[in-house]
């Protein structure tokens, strides 16, 4: 159970980065940390005690297998995470070129 709590603490650290930090790159890093903690959480669910990797080769005849479904989900989610980070970084470059800084306070020209 300690593993799930640590995973949740990592989630909160990422959320801290997103909500409190003012630097665009720090916010993007915070989001990536949230993504990583959710991926770890999914794989922790799928683990089976002393199970082997889900590959059917010669010596893995009667072995217990780890759950392949969360692994398929996380494989998809990793590439979605990469896509989101790439979009965020391209906007961060554009904002840097226009405002000259990564600090969200100066960029905060929009009201309410």
């Amino acid at each position, binding site marked *: 159970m300690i593993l799930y709590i640590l995973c949740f603490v990592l989630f909160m650290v990422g959320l801290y980065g997103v909500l409190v930090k003012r630097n665009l790159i720090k916010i993007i890093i915070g989001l990536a940390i949230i993504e990583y903690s959710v991926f770890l959480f999914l794989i922790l669910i799928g683990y089976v005690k002393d199970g082997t*990797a889900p590959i059917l080769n010669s010596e893995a005849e009667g072995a217990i297998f780890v759950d392949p479904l969360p692994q398929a989900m996380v494989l998809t989610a990793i*590439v979605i995470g990469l896509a989101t980070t790439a979009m965020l970084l391209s906007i961060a*470059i554009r904002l840097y070129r226009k405002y000259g800084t990564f600090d969200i306070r100066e960029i905060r020209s929009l009201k309410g």
Partner: protein
Amino acid sequence: MKGMSIIVQKICQIVAPVIFLFGIYIVIHGHLTPGGGFAGGVIMAGAFIFQIISYGSDLPKLQKKEFSLEILESSGILGFLIIACLGLLFSTVGIFFANFLPTGKIGELVSAGYIPLANIVVAAEVSAAISLIFLAMIVFKEEISDDR
């Protein structure tokens, strides 16, 4: 974009083809060993990016690469969609993602129906996509430094 020192370029000359070959191995053996379309595609993109960083190249060549990679990427997914629709047309009962090719004996190279084809097509799409993201950022930074 200027390239890196001669040492890095020499190492890149030796290592990049090996990385690319490793990526192709991962894609082809996707249904036998760990890896598959995504892992192999990302490794191929890594080899491509390694070359761009170490050799560097001027703007028009980068933009020409961008054009051909966009074609490769969209035709990659279109291939995957066509494989899916072939299931609709050919397979006995006509279902969207049906496995219309024979699945053969588990463990052999040509075995898992359309999965090797899907692996290859997705690997092409993923490698083109990630190289495009990297190129877009390099070309953008190149153009800013030009007009500054």
